């Protein structure tokens, strides 16, 4: 430890700490502008200059390491004068348009101006007058307000590892921008915006809608994928105005993705249904929520007494909270008495690895999933670790993904070749093959390896279980799809019961569909005809979906921003969701309580009471802290026997890809996310496109067996030749994608 004295306060700090860190420990405030604790020290702005005894020069506190017995002064007249002048100089070019700047009230430059007592500018102001850049739907860029602290450039480089922006030109001409001033075209994670100390990078979804001091902050968990990111929901008058990060909070350490940060308008969307609806003939009629609940319970009781308790099925969405899923199972098992609980989740793979395991990993394998798209924040952690380790990242995926820049081994290719290679790799890990042996021996020699995979692919699971057996040290990370994909498995809703099978046997007469859009889910695609034969379908969803349209009774329910409960993320971490707003809609929880009680059961009367019951009945949840505790699971992956299979015939190989901007049907309700990606497109290699005379945005028909479906073309230079891809879980893709994970298709160009 090193002893230093800061403004007369003695403090002991680790060697190699900076003066700034020592000052924080001593409780001494040093102003900063370009520094950010998530970034490496930079020392660009000079606002943190301090005096060090016996040192003739002033030192920047953010970059200078402490030495033993250093005596530091952070406040005196000389420093005050210098700091004040620095701000005055910045204000020559920085326009004083604070009244119309969205950053007003939370602007570091504004705060420093006030702190240093700058009340007039001695220099002639020369604000630039460059047009504001509106070329992307998420981040508004006003380069005139930029103070060139470089936080955005550095976070995009050091943390996000994409380097989508850089410093350009030199001296007084320096600006932050892109290559040849192209429009910003990146992942739009918005990390750059979150660290901007001035109003140069602004949230366009929030722009000019409110002022920060009006907003109420609610700490919660994002409900748009299984990463389990902590978010701050900024709201006023039951409207969500923005989603903010907190770099001290949560497993995500403040990092957010485009969905989590900019997709929130789906909560406010005016298209959200406010009324329950009942089908009368071919039309839907509005009814009160009380009438809807009593109709539902009457109908269910009637069908149960007429056809028996196993004539009712309950479909549970992976978006429900643990408490809701628990009640859904209670309703099905204990109250109705049916074995038919359906969900699109399986218990084949359980959480094992955590974010900390990723950070400490010395070898990461990403198997056949584009994690940067499916679970973007997990992708950040993988990229950061690979960057730190300068390698040790092995990726198998048909095309290059955003892991490309940091991956040390990237295996791409046609599925027909790549899948063989993956098998070779598994063989080599098991010691049965010499092919891929270099990669395999690295994995076998690693001390803390991690394997990231897609738990929904049986063939991938088979490979994962082989690797896990051969290298037990490997920590498995299943990239679950939705915010509570794991939780509903834990609550007993992944029974393995197959909806298609259950309905096919004509036993089921009624379905309670809780938040799942079964009409567009590739797993359920052949159901629509069967569903119309059912006597009664109750559907709940924040939106009136394709499934709602074929149901007999629809009840609009709360989103994750409007309810309490817990979600379990892909690590098996249980985290608390807090309501930020109230749209006057019932939650699935309250609906289930009413249904259970009116059907003769006894439901817990609050979320807290439900949690007590969960602790009693779900054994691995009994001792877990519901606010960040990690559940322990008896196994990580089941023995799965499955082989890769490419079905169908045709000249192109088709695989399912993930989509960063959307996690399925729910996020398509965000008007902002749909600005960048509206409909599912087919990605095709430029040379293949040229052969077929196709351009970006052309329509092409995909023919898989007898099924034909039109898609818009998107040229993707990283897709190998002869390979095309379509995003999963997207409206309109189900008929094609239901045929198989990998398939051969024909492409037919439209005249």
């Amino acid at each position, binding site marked *: 430890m090193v002893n230093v004295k800061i403004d007369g306060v003695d403090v002991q700090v680790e060697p190699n700490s900076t003066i700034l860190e020592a000052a924080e420990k001593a409780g001494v405030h040093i102003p900063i502008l370009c520094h950010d604790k998530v970034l490496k020290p930079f020392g660009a702005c000079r606002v943190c200059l301090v005096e060090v005894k016996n040192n003739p020069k002033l030192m920047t506190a953010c970059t200078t390491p402490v030495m033993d017995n250093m005596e530091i002064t952070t406040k005196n007249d000389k420093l005050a004068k210098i700091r004040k002048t620095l701000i005055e100089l910045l204000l020559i070019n920085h326009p004083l348009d604070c009244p119309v700047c969205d950053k007003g009230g939370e602007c570091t430059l504004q705060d420093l101006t006030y702190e240093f007592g700058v009340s007039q500018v001695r220099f002639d102001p020369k604000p630039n007058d460059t047009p504001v850049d509106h070329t992307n739907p998420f981040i508004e860029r006003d380069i005139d307000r930029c103070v060139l602290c470089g936080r955005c450039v550095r976070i995009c480089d050091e943390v996000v590892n994409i*380097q989508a922006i*850089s410093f*350009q*030109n030199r001296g007084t001409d320096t600006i932050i921008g892109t290559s040849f001033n*192209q429009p910003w075209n990146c992942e739009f994670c918005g990390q750059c915006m979150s660290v901007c100390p001035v109003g140069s990078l602004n949230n366009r979804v929030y722009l000019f809608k409110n002022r920060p001091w009006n907003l109420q902050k609610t700490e919660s968990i994002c409900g748009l994928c299984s990463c389990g990111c902590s978010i701050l929901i900024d709201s006023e008058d039951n409207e969500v105005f923005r989603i903010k990060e907190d770099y001290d909070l949560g497993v995500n350490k403040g990092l957010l993705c485009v969905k989590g940060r900019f997709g929130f308008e789906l909560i406010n969307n005016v298209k959200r249904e406010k009324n329950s609806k009942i089908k009368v003939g071919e039309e839907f009629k509005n009814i009160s929520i009380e009438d809807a609940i009593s109709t539902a319970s009457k109908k269910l009781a009637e069908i149960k007494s007429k056809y028996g308790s196993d004539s009712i099925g309950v479909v549970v969405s992976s978006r429900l909270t643990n408490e809701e899923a628990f009640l859904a199972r209670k309703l099905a098992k204990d109250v109705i008495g049916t074995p038919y609980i359906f969900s699109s989740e399986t218990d084949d793979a359980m959480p094992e690895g955590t974010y900390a395991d990723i950070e400490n990993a010395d070898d990461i394998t990403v198997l056949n999933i584009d994690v940067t798209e499916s679970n973007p924040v997990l992708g950040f952690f993988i990229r950061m670790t690979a960057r730190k380790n300068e390698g040790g990242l092995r990726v198998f995926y048909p095309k290059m993904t955003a892991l490309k820049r940091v991956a040390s081994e990237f295996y791409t290719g046609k599925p027909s070749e790549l899948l063989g290679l993956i098998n070779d790799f598994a063989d080599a890990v098991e010691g049965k093959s010499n092919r891929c042996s270099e990669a395999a021996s690295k994995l076998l020699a690693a001390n803390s390896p991690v394997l990231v995979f897609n738990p929904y692919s049986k063939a991938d699971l088979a490979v994962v279980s082989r690797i896990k057996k051969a290298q037990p040290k490997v920590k498995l990370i299943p990239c679950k799809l939705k915010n509570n994909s794991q939780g509903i498995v834990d609550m007993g809703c992944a029974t393995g019961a197959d909806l298609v099978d259950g309905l096919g046997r004509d036993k089921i007469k009624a379905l309670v569909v809780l938040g799942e859009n079964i009409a567009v889910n590739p797993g359920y695609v052949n159901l629509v005809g069967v569903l119309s034969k059912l006597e009664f379908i109750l559907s709940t969803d924040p939106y009136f979906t394709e499934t709602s349209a074929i149901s007999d009774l629809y009840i609009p329910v709360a989103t994750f921003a409007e309810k309490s409960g817990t979600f379990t993320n892909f690590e098996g971490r249980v985290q608390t969701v807090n309501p930020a707003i109230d749209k006057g809609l019932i939650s699935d929880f309250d609906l289930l309580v009413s249904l259970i009680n009116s059907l003769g059961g006894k439901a817990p009367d609050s979320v807290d009471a439900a949690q007590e019951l969960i602790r009693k009945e779900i054994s691995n949840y009994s001792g877990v802290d519901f606010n960040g505790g990690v559940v322990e699971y008896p196994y990580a992956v089941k023995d799965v026997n499955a082989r890769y299979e490419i079905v169908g015939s045709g000249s192109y190989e088709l695989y399912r890809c993930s989509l960063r901007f959307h996690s399925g049907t729910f996020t398509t309700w965000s008007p902002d996310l749909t600005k960048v990606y509206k409909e599912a497109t087919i990605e095709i290699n430029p040379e293949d496109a040229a052969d077929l005379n196709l351009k970006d945005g052309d329509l092409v028909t995909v023919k898989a067996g007898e099924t034909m479906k039109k898609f818009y073309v998107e040229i993707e230079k990283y897709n190998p030749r002869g390979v095309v891809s379509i995003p999963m879980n997207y409206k309109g893709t189900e008929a094609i994608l239901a045929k198989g994970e990998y398939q051969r298709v024909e492409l037919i160009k439209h005249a």
Partner: protein
Amino acid sequence: MEDVVEKEAIDLTMIDEVCAEYKGRKGATIPVLQKVQEHYGYLSSDMIDRIGENLNISSHTLYGVLTFYAQFYTTPRGKYVIRVCRGTACHVKGSGRISEVVKEEFGISNGETTSDIKFTLEEVSCIGACGMAPVIMINDKTYGNLTPEQARSIFKEYAQKQD
């Protein structure tokens, strides 16, 4: 905005060869940019993207580097680069008039290139030949003690060169 004139496709395969030579080496960026520019005369967006793909570096980072250095150009350079010295001695001896003559003859200002990509005007700070001020350089050749009219006839001579 759509390009009205379709640009002639430039064969960029030379970039792959240059990058292959430097791949995996640290500090490759500047030598690669120099070699590519030496070959094509400038660095275009497509070239930068291609270099980025090859070296696994973001094109935005590369662009940041190339705009930092005066030695890199992002637009095609003329066959003849006219460097007009604007140092103190040349300035006093009327080098401003010589820049004007270039403008009169070719219609280009500092940093610009004629549309036939024959001439580029570059005003430089000092080329170290103050004794012969005002002085210009056309590619590697130096012309000193110029009057505007002498300069004009030199430019005309170059303009008539055919090859």
